[in-house]
């Protein structure tokens, strides 16, 4: 088992990690917008 295995879809693990952090950012923005729009 190698820890340098290439990930599926993306060419590096860094891209997967950025996806996770990007998704977090998008969700925070979306939830903030919901809070501002309806509160």
């Amino acid at each position, binding site marked *: 088992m190698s*820890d340098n295995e290439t990930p599926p879809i993306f060419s590096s*693990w860094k891209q997967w990690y950025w996806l996770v952090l990007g998704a977090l950012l998008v969700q925070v923005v979306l939830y903030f917008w919901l809070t501002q729009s309806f509160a």
Partner: protein
Amino acid sequence: MNYLDWSVLVGTILFIVVYGVWKTRGNKTMESYLKGDNSMKWWMIGVSIMATQASAVTFLSTPGQAIEDGMRFLQFYFGLPIAMVIISVTMVPIYYRLKVFTAYEYLETRFDVKTRSLAAILFLILRGLSAGITLFAPSLVLSTILGWPISITTILIGLLVIIYVISGGTKAVSLTQRYQLTIIMGGMILAGILAFTMLPKEISFGDSVQLAGELGKLNLVSFKFDLSDRYNIWSGLIAGTFLFLSYFGTDQSQVARYLGGTSVAESRLGLIFNGLLKIPMQFIILFIGVLVFVFYLFNQSPVFHNQVLKEKAMQTAQADTLLLLDNRYNELYKQKRTAVDHLVQAIHTNDKVAIEKESDNVKSFQKSETAIRDSVKSTIAKAIPGAKTQDRDYIFLNFVLSYLPHGIIGLLLAVMFSAAMSSMAGELNALASTTTVDIYKRAVKQTATPEHYVTASKLFTAIWAMLAMIFATLASFAENLIQFVNIVGSLFYGTILGIFLVAFYIKRVQGTAVFWAAIIAEALVLYCFKYTSIAYLLYNIIGCAAVISISLIFQTFMPSQKKNVIE
């Protein structure tokens, strides 16, 4: 509950138990029993991680939390994706390279046996108490709802879990969790849809969202920095990252989930799966609570949601007071209902001034309702001394039993049982693995056949399950007990995380320095607990910071030991 509900409930639970036993029969080696033969694909790992974390309390309490406090609890999970990335980058490759069965084995490779044993024992104390609560909380609620003695629901859930966890080990836990999570999420979403369809016809989905927002339930994100505020974006991102790093990176009940992967890539993808889906999942559960809140704007909610306890109180001398409060509550609801209708009209005409005025009006009625509810709680406490009057955990289940059709009621009860079983299974499996690998195999019997260790692991599973059942059955002071276990968790988690952070990131610190640092840090935390009024959540940070700083100081004065450092 009619025969249809019982059929759905019993059928679902039996399917899970029989499937778990049948699919994992013949697990004989430690690899297969404790790591599932490293056969888990990324999606199974992700599902297993989510199912282990989400106990029955999550599904009983979270909708009630949204009804009472809005959706701001969601921010608690904002640190989770960050923790998933850190664990994928640092911890997963090391655990795989060393082919460990438990996270604590790594500590012996990195430090020494005494540090490994210390961390393993701290984990066993923590998780052993927690397994009791994982079992106790749903047992209490289900016993109240079903009218059964708590000892029956406790033993029933415990025995069901024992059957398939002893039979199939880690693989049985993961295989059953995918069905359990499907049942849980399917049942919860169905309940949310039904809550919406039971609203008056003129109320659209947009109206529901706007009503919830106007009445303060869509308070999803707050950027205000306030140390006394439990849920805001800063506490979620900073304290949440620490907490989830500790839970997913060093707690064997989670580490075991991703150590069962076929490769580092599958484990990383499983963690990424959790990092991407956990917050949306919590959003859905909280939003279901919001829909139930909107439902109760158009339908009168009970003044006290633990109906069984209230009925008992009605048999006492406090009955007249409770009847009086009931009448006041009924009268108040009629007035609130009129105010809600006016608010809906204002929303339909998009009259901003009227919307603000009518929302304030409804909010003032809600405040009066809360005051009556508080009076009911204190009256019940007077009527039945020592009774648990916190009824938040009963709100959602009470809604299910009162308003949902037969069949769905059985499904939703199956959801609660499934959630209790899935998290309990993960915990028992981790407790047995750690006892077998880190204590029994390391300190008691170092050489034996794989079959012997599998048998020992099964025995430890049964022992831990029995302890959890005894703990849950004897526990009759729920509110204090849950707080007690949270305090115990905070007393030890900081020290464990500190040991692992030193192991991963401060290569020059060696075993003896970190071991004594951990002992002193633990003593410091216990001193803070005994002699100061510091909030117990801060013990996590105090313990962690103390291990890191004291070990660095000790290492400066200690001779360097020659040891291969694992990087």
